[in-house]
């Protein structure tokens, strides 16, 4: 369903909803995976992102997103300068991340903060819509249209019930839940989209479970 406010919007820093606003949103999502502005970021641009990214400010938009700037934040224009002052060490590379089945506006971001490192593959689908398709090698499908919690857990029985109970106790309603794993008995990757924004407590309660390797809040970036 198309919303009227999707058509008359978003309010954004130009020049391109896909190459600028969408790129910024991917940066915001990657930032969430390390709980804040990363100290180091390796940004690999693919396809049209690599070819026309500089002219569209794609580099500034991703760096800005990593620092928590939203698509309508005028600081995006000078985000690379700000990154240097704020201690975000970034590198940009133009590369080929996949064959023609990978969306032409794609980027792989490797972010580090403290002892945490995450690799995220995402694409900007047009009109500011985004898709995260891989996190640390796990296939996912995250559009950033919901608040979410993402986590990796050991494949133990009853894990979903425990996590659902924690979320229910915090008054959070689950919109969607997806579980993927690379092999039977291997670690499971959970994406839980929520109707309400979770606070740090929900995340920390999930982190406190002994069989959860890591968990992060993924704030909604669109919709």
């Amino acid at each position, binding site marked *: 369903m198309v919303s*009227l*406010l999707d*058509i008359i*919007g978003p309010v954004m820093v*130009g020049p*391109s909803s896909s190459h600028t606003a969408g790129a910024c949103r991917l940066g915001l999502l990657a930032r969430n995976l390390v709980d804040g502005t990363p100290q180091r970021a390796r940004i690999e641009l693919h396809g049209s992102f690599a070819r026309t990214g500089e002219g569209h*400010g794609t580099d500034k938009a991703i760096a800005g997103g990593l620092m928590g700037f939203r698509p309508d934040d005028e600081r995006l*224009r000078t985000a690379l300068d700000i990154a240097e002052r704020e201690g975000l060490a970034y590198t940009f590379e133009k590369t080929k991340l996949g064959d023609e089945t990978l969306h032409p506006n794609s980027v792989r971001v490797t972010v580090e903060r403290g002892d945490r490192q995450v690799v995220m593959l995402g694409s900007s689908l047009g*009109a500011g819509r985004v898709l995260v398709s891989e996190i640390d090698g796990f296939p996912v499908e995250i559009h950033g249209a919901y608040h979410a919690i993402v986590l990796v857990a050991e494949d133990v029985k009853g894990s979903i019930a425990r996590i659902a109970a924690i979320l229910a106790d915090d008054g959070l309603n689950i919109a969607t839940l997806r579980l993927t794993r690379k092999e039977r008995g291997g670690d499971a990757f959970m994406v839980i989209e929520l109707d309400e924004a979770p606070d740090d407590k929900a995340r920390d309660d999930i982190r406190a479970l002994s069989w959860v390797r890591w968990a992060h809040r993924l704030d909604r970036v669109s919709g």
Partner: protein
Amino acid sequence: MYTSLREAIRDAEARKISLARLALELEAKDQGRPVGEIRDALQRALDVMRGAIAQGLTGEFRSASGLVGGDAAKLLHGPPGPLAGTPFRDVLARALAVQEINAAMGVIVAAPTAGGAGVLPAVLTGLADARGLDDEQLVDALATAGLIGAVVAVRASLSGAEGGCQAETGAAAGMAAGAGTEMLGGTPAQVGHAVALAQQGTLGLVCDPLGGLVELPCVFRNATGAAIALAAIEMALAGITFAIPADEVIDTMGEIGREMDVRYRETAGGGLAATPTGRKLARERLVQIKRG
């Protein structure tokens, strides 16, 4: 939201209400939010649109490549042409202004997209200011434009990479034509004819930006898109009808977009981007961006 303008026009006529009111009520229902909140969001969009126009008209902003900027101010201060002193010239200036700001990484409203962001604010605020209409009427017009854009999104496309520029500035022209027609007192049926008249005039329009950047010809396509919208409004309000219904013109745009060679869909592989001068400018200016 509606997927057919014919159905929207039929419902508005049956209830004897404007398309704007129809769109606002349906959006409120779809989103589970009061109409007032939708209006507030559209008012914020309107404020950003006016801000971008004001910034662009100063003539002080240039794009990353330096290829565009400063032309909106020429329409404001430059020598007069046959349209001097008319809302038409003012609308052209505003369309250039918004798109120059977009190219300079300023803040705009992607309506329907960033590349076509100049048409709607230029046509609507230009006409409203000329007629002394207030923000409430402009918010209504934005709602009507949103309804039209939603129909285009579902039936065809709003992406230059998918459908060429007919899906960006062309769709924007259709939205502006319909919304402007209603804002100036046109009936729902006249809105339909205005959309069809504007959209038929942009069928086949390719997306061929130099170097793949939203600069050239995008800035000027917004001005000519606004001109087409004004022509459609003038004709529709005069009682002129277009024999092919708006839905079918929009479907045609989608069909042409799907058949359009990839060189003409934002890849800079054809059209103006592939001309000798287009290639040369892209080469020189892209190098400049890297140095800058």
